[in-house]
């Protein structure tokens, strides 16, 4: 038996685990080879030194933690295995990834559900500040007239209906502040007296209702507008 073969059997020879014939060969070689014999003595001396080391008794806390961990590893794998310290051994790590995969799928599903664009509502929502326009009559109609502005051209009077002067003379020094709604066809759809002499109001309102205009226009389209006028005796006397 070669020196290399003998030295490779040191471990089993120390444990007396070799077959009788092999053990005899090793012993014969050690008796004949001084170098292997010295190596064998050194081998045993090192291991005897290790064997003479008294085992370290674990403190109660360490032992409890070890037994806790052993107990956890004996149980079925679960999420707790994922949250152990990073350097700790993770037995059954692959089975424990199954619940982790469920959690991940749940999170992703929730994110996708939140990210989906909601379906438009089939039922018209109740009135709120955001949809007042839907409740009001269309802008520019007689029920919801516009005001003249840079974009809304003012109506031009086509056949002014003057207030009869005798009516104003009868009413003395009065004056009226009126709102006239000029409809999309040029007629006057409404005259509202906002202030002034009530005695003067009726004949003046009747006269204003008979007025005809070129309708106001917004982007080329005729629209109803409100115009405000202060009518005084000076206006009548001027005719």
């Amino acid at each position: 038996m070669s020196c290399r073969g003998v030295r490779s059997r040191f471990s089993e020879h120390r444990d007396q685990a070799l077959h009788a014939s092999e053990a005899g060969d090793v012993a014969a070689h050690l008796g004949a080879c001084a170098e292997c014999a010295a190596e064998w003595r050194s081998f045993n001396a090192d291991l005897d030194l290790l064997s003479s080391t008294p085992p370290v008794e674990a403190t109660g806390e360490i032992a409890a933690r070890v037994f806790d961990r052993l107990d956890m590893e004996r149980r079925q794998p679960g999420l707790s295995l994922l949250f152990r310290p990073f350097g700790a051994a993770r037995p059954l790590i692959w089975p424990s990834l199954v619940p982790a995969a469920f959690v991940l799928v749940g999170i992703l599903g929730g994110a996708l559900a939140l990210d989906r664009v909601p379906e438009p509502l089939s039922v018209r929502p109740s009135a709120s500040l955001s949809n007042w326009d839907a409740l009001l009559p269309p802008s520019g109609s007689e029920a919801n007239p516009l005001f003249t502005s840079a974009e809304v051209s003012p109506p031009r009077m086509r056949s002014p209906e003057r207030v009869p002067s005798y009516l104003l003379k009868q009413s003395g020094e009065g004056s009226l502040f009126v709102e006239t709604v000029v409809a999309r066809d040029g007629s006057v759809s409404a005259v509202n007296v906002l202030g002034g002499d009530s005695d003067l109001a009726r004949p003046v309102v009747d006269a204003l209702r008979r007025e005809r205009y070129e309708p106001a226009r917004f982007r080329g389209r005729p629209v109803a507008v409100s115009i405000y006028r202060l009518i005084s005796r000076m206006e009548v006397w001027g005719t």
Partner: protein
Amino acid sequence: MSAVSPAEGPYERLARRERARRMETALLALSFDHRAVLLLREVEGLSCEEIATTLALPIGTVKSRLARGRDGLRRALASRGEETP
């Protein structure tokens, strides 16, 4: 824990501590698998069959790890001995 005999002098105590330190360093140089089998065999005194049962390993694996652990310990101690003046 440490077996200190009353007759141990300062030199012997220092030598024993040095041996213990070298042994600890050599053991730490081994892999966990080899170290576990080696300590169970040499320090705890378990047989190879008992180690195989404890670690749920085949008996052949225990024997091969034990042989490699012993060889690795020997080499680690020898290299440390050469480094130490």
